[in-house]
């Protein structure tokens, strides 16, 4: 019996796409900014919204009244920042990790927005609270940047190749989750549950298993 209750609880705990399905699709590009000591200092995130959501935002803001799919520079200036008014508890749907350690990121800054090909693309910059060493041979843990919405209202993908700006001998690659493996992890987490496990703490790791991610490493400087 507890298993059924647990199942309901787990599935609604938020991380898995349980009682939600996406209504907005965002294609993400991740640029990692590296200093000359091969430490990552910031991420520039680019979000390209799906056609409908782009149309919805542009229409709602009264931009592009002639519907030619182009905005004037003034209109783009008005559009800029439309998605940057974040609630204090919104994590930006970007999660940076090194090994198992989550890395703190600043609030967004230096944002832009453009409208082209019937899609809005916005960019913003987020700094790491502390520079992240990328060529620590002893550690040899890549910087991982994941893009996902824990509530699964937005479906993120990372179709664009990641970019590394600066540093020496650094490279970044995108990893798409093995959905079967992620499902297995979820089921394993369900079957291994014991009452003393803190679900809130344990569960996001399973949810992140469904996320696409960028991994960044540098050779020794």
């Amino acid at each position, binding site marked *: 019996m507890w298993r*059924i*209750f647990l199942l309901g609880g787990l599935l609604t705990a938020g991380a898995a796409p349980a*009682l939600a399905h996406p209504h907005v*699709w965002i294609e993400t590009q991740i640029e990692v900014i590296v200093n000359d000591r091969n430490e990552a200092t910031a991420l520039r995130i680019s979000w390209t919204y799906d*056609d409908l959501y782009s149309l919805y935002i542009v229409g*709602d803001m009264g931009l592009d009244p002639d519907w030619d799919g182009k905005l004037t520079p003034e209109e783009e200036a008005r559009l800029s920042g439309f998605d940057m008014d974040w609630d204090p508890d919104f994590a930006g749907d970007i999660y940076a990790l090194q090994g198992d350690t989550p890395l703190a990121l600043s609030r967004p800054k230096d944002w832009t927005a453009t409208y082209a090909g019937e899609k809005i693309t916005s960019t913003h910059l987020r700094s790491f609270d502390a520079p992240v060493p990328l060529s620590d041979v002893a550690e040899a843990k890549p910087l991982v940047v994941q893009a996902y919405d824990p509530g699964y209202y937005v479906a993120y993908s990372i179709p664009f190749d990641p970019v590394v700006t600066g540093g020496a001998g650094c490279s970044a690659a995108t990893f798409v989750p093995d959905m079967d493996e992620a499902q297995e992890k979820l089921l394993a987490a369900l079957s291994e549950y014991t009452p003393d496990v803190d679900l809130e703490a344990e569960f996001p790791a399973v949810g992140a298993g469904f996320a696409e991610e960028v991994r960044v490493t540098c050779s020794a400087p």
Partner: protein
Amino acid sequence: MQRAVMITGLGLLLAGGLLWLTGALDGLAGWLQAGQRGAQDQLAGAIRALRSGEAGALAAFWTVCFGYGVLHAAGPGHGKLIIGGYGVARRVPVGRLAGLALASSLAQAAVAVALVYALVAVLGLTRSAVEGLAADWVAPVGHAMIAGLGLWLVWRGIGGLRRMAADAGRAAGPDHGPDHRHGHHDHSHDPHHVHGPDCGHAHGPTIEEAARVHSFRDGVTLVAGIALRPCSGALFVLILTWQLGIAMAGVIGAFVMGLGTATVTVAVAAMAVWAREGAFAALPQGRVARAIPVVEVALGGVIAVAALGLLVGSL
């Protein structure tokens, strides 16, 4: 021993059904998502075509709305959990449950229309105000109603279990027939009534009426609980069409979306009733009577926990 086997089997059936309902076992998830994404883009294209006044654009727009509704309902969602869970937990005729599923899909569209037109068109509020109100007030009320329905099922189930324990203390009577079972439960609100081994006298019209009242209240709660979580797709379409000056096309589009959603929720309703009746038919009558409160507690618990999770998440 046999009872343990039965309950395990039932549990497995429920867990399997739940996994299916919530999409955790859904091998088609990726395919569905691609479909939803495609419908999203097509909807944008259809609205653009409407704007430029292409021939046949309206019919194409409504067709895409219907498809959008079907695809979004086919993914995991609260409506299917509630309809399916309720259909398994309570013995409800398939026609009525299907009707409730259809009603809740259309009511969901009506809520979206009311929200957009009351707030945007009449009060002149912005899109983000509508989204905020939908997320901060309307949806939580719906979640609270669903949680209440789940807790009520649990409460009924616990009452049934207690009565069963009390009955077990007396001599075992003949196996209960299905009609008896129904009356037995609904009668539980009369504390003075004592069940004898032959419960024939209990089936007066007042009990049937009481059952109907409960069903009616359940139905209203169910429909309202589902409807009060307006679909974002409908909000997008309504706001866009309003700005384009083709409000009526958008309102009809929202209801067509609701009909698309209903195709799936009605199917879930039918499957839930079928699974329940099928599982019970496979069991000896006496065991069925004993399984009912267990199922009520389990499914009520799932619905309550899920709704409370949504409620906490939406606050």
